[in-house]
């Protein structure tokens, strides 16, 4: 049974999101697995301490042996005993464009992943299901690359100054006008790093005496920005509107803790697409709540810009809403535009304020000119201003790929989280051993996937995450699906019993408050 939400006409088309419950047996086995690994970990640590087993870690200098140790032993327990064993699934070295297919340098380890050596062989044409290449702009040929090459030879690679000093190039002004037009907002500002956009601008917008309501599963950059601002942070359950409403009501009615003074402002932090869950934010409801309770909305569209919406304008267009309802629209250029950096769009007063008081404008270097050119060219292509329909086709191709891929995986019997329209597809693995096994088996079959475990996800919910791309043709997807099917049978990953829990029945209990200390 799929639960489809309409919520009184706020949604113009069905909002189809599902998170199947973890089967009880699987949960128990997962805990057992972690328990066994922990016991083995203690055993190995014991052996290493008594020098029965060789210690492969780097160690402290002789001269500094009597200093306070830099790391506590238990902090690195997970790192030494669990992460090390499956470390070869991450940090894989690439030697070609990260497009639909990628070349990888083969590496082997003779000492159980403590050190790697290159065999010298290059594994060619691995199907790339791990890079954030939603619209397929990661190319080394074509209009974007040529434009970037021209700008590189004219401007050079670096900028060597901050935005407020001597680093504001005419290219940056051009880019910002284009972004504002693309998003449908009054004004925009671009920054050199997506992570830094969040961590340096949230502190400029809110401070002490303000309240931040942040989603449970927000990205590390949002959490860091919220912490650095000094405001009080309260967490609401992931995508749960009742939880958010309750927090809003309580905040306005009770005011600040201890002093009972009213809050200066309330900022809601949400993301467009959550990259670990594949879920899309319930934007119509959030905006309705925001208007009712007079708070401000900060939308981080890192994954959804370019990937959602009939013309790639992001989650606001996907729901058919007005971009002026979102106070701060933030996003990054790394994923859909094949470049680097971040932006913030909104009203002119907001952007003028950020131009003056943003930490990044004063202390950090501006974007590199060839990167700016790549963003300009790719954005124009998506908007259709370069005279072709290439951009529009990419957006449509991505939407088709998403629907097809998700449907086929569900039919095969895997547990897939997230919204039907999100190009991020998490496939649940649960058990620690399967994390490593899945990554390695897929690589043997020439498919590169991303597997994630603790601490990026809750401890029993490890998963493999596929990132679809407009560059993937149907043949590539079919090959991938065939292999995933094989590996799924081999590793017994087909947990789904087609019993999808209706969304509103997800148990809602008393929210917990997390407040910062003064």
């Amino acid at each position: 049974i799929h639960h489809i939400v309409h919520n009184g006409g706020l949604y113009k088309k069905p909002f189809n999101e599902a998170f199947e419950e973890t089967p009880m047996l699987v949960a128990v086995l997962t805990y057992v697995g972690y328990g066994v690994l922990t016991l083995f970990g203690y055993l190995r640590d014991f052996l290493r301490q008594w020098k029965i087993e060789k210690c492969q870690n780097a160690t402290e200098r002789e001269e500094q042996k009597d200093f306070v140790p830099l790391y506590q032993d238990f902090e690195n327990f997970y790192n030494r005993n669990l992460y090390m064993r499956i470390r070869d699934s991450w940090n894989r070295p690439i030697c070609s464009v990260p497009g639909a297919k990628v070349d990888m340098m083969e590496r082997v380890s003779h000492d159980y992943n403590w050190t790697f050596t290159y065999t010298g062989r290059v594994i060619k044409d691995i199907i790339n299901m791990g890079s954030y290449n939603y619209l397929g702009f990661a190319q080394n040929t074509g209009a974007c690359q040529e434009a970037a090459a021209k700008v590189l030879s004219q401007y050079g690679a670096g900028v060597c100054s901050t935005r407020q000093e001597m680093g504001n190039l005419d290219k940056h002004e051009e880019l910002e006008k284009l972004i504002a037009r693309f998003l449908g907002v009054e004004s925009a500002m671009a920054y050199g790093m997506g992570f830094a956009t969040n961590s340096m601008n949230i502190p400029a917008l809110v401070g002490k005496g303000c309240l931040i309501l942040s989603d449970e599963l927000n990205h590390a950059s949002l959490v860091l920005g919220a912490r650095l601002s000094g405001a009080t942070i309260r967490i609401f359950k992931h995508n749960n509107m009742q939880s958010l409403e309750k927090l809003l009501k309580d905040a306005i009615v009770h005011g600040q803790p201890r002093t009972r003074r009213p809050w200066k402002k309330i900022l809601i932090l949400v993301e467009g697409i959550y990259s670990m869950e594949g879920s899309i934010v319930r934007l119509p409801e959030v905006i309705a709540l925001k208007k009712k309770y007079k708070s401000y909305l900060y939308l981080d569209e890192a994954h959804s810009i370019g990937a959602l919406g009939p013309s790639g304008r992001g989650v606001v267009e996907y729901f058919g809403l007005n971009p002026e309802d979102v106070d701060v629209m933030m996003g990054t250029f790394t994923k859909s535009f094949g470049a680097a950096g971040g932006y913030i769009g909104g009203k002119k007063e907001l952007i003028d304020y950020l131009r003056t008081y943003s930490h990044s404008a004063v202390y950090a270097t501006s974007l590199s000119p060839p990167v700016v050119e790549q963003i300009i060219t790719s954005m124009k292509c998506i908007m259709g201003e370069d005279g072709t329909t290439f951009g529009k086709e990419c957006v449509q191709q991505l939407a088709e790929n998403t629907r097809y891929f998700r449907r086929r995986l569900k039919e095969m019997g895997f547990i897939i989280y997230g919204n039907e329209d999100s190009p991020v597809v998490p496939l649940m693995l649960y058990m620690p051993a399967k994390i490593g096994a899945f990554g390695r088996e897929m690589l043997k079959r020439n498919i590169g996937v991303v597997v994630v475990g603790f601490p990026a996800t809750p401890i029993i919910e490890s998963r493999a995450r596929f990132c679809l791309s407009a560059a993937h043709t149907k043949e590539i997807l079919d090959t991938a699906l065939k292999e995933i099917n094989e590996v799924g049978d081999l590793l017994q990953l087909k947990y789904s019993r087609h019993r999808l829990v209706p969304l509103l029945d997800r148990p809602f209990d008393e929210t917990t408050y997390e407040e910062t200390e003064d």
Partner: protein
Amino acid sequence: LQEKEELIEEWQPEPLVPPVSKDHPALNYNIVSGPPTHKITVNGKECINFASFNFLGLLDNEKVKNAAQASLKKYGVGTCGPRGFYGTFVDVHLELEERLAKFMRTEEAIIYSYGFATIASAIPAYSKRGDIVFVDEAACFAIQKGLQASRSNIKLFKHNDMADLERLLKEQETEDQKNPRKARVTRRFIVVEGLYMNTGDVCPLPELIKLKYKYKVRIFLEESLSFGVLGEHGRGITEHFRINIDDIDLISANMENSLASIGGFCCGRSFVIDHQRLSGQGYCFSASLPPLLAAAAIEALNIMEDNPDIFQTLQGKCKRIHRALQGISGLKVVGESFSPALHLQLEESCGSRENDVKLLKRVVDYCMNSGIALTQARYLEKEEKCLPPPSIRVVITVEQTEQELDKAASLIKEAAQSVLN
């Protein structure tokens, strides 16, 4: 329930952002048309660039641009992923890390994709709540943000004042003796910069090393301005003072000054650096450095290694202009004679910071109108811990000729005469 509805109705939040006046000095940016190289076109006027941190003049070096072009042809622009998820390119990222480690003669190096994020992610990776960090007052903003994110106890000591630092260390020692159990697990760090951006002088590294071993404190050195400037081969302040590099626990620098690229790196022993690969926030949760920028940095490093005499040339030019700028009535030079980034501060403030800033702006405008591009040093006035006084930033690069240096000095003298008297 009725009351609650009323309260919700009545509550009025502040506007999201307060209005900014149209003639706020920071709102109207200088627009640079074309590349920010030696000859720069600012707001339509062609000037000689004394404001970009392009110390070794590598911003429009042909070899650097060609290396970046080759990388662009091979990889495109973006990397589409963080280092952990198919974002590690062998012959750019891994190569750059190896080259940097070899150049600085350390075991390992790690690259970040943004200069500001480098030190701001490195400090919280090691120093947690309950640890103690002794930091210089004049530390740059990135260090301050890193310290804030780490939630540790911060103890500021007066700029370059080793006696003050020793006093704080002694106080901490007596505290430790009261609670030895806690002291055994509390980590301590000293964070200093090689060449301070805000004051233009160097830290007394030999004394710091002595204090390190006496009080068992680790040292984190931020070398953004001194990398590629100080020392015989440009290895920074450790080479300048001839100190064993293993004595410094972590060296962090950004590649946006001498290397004329984007990004930053940390180098040190593997024991220290490897930890950041899993716990450096700016490394794990952010896309990796675009390959063309990494290739540009590698080529810049090659040039630095092949021409070690540019460092001497740069130092000579710094000394020359430092001498030439002495004795200007109304302005004093702040910074060491070999520092390529100087500050010119007003000898006497005219009362308020706002008026000082306006006065300095007039000096800068005078110089810009006559062909020398300068800028005021920008700060976030409310956020800095120890706000430096308003100043004009003068940056010396290897590309400036002696005539240009002399012209700049005389122009600044003229400007000071006409504006300040």
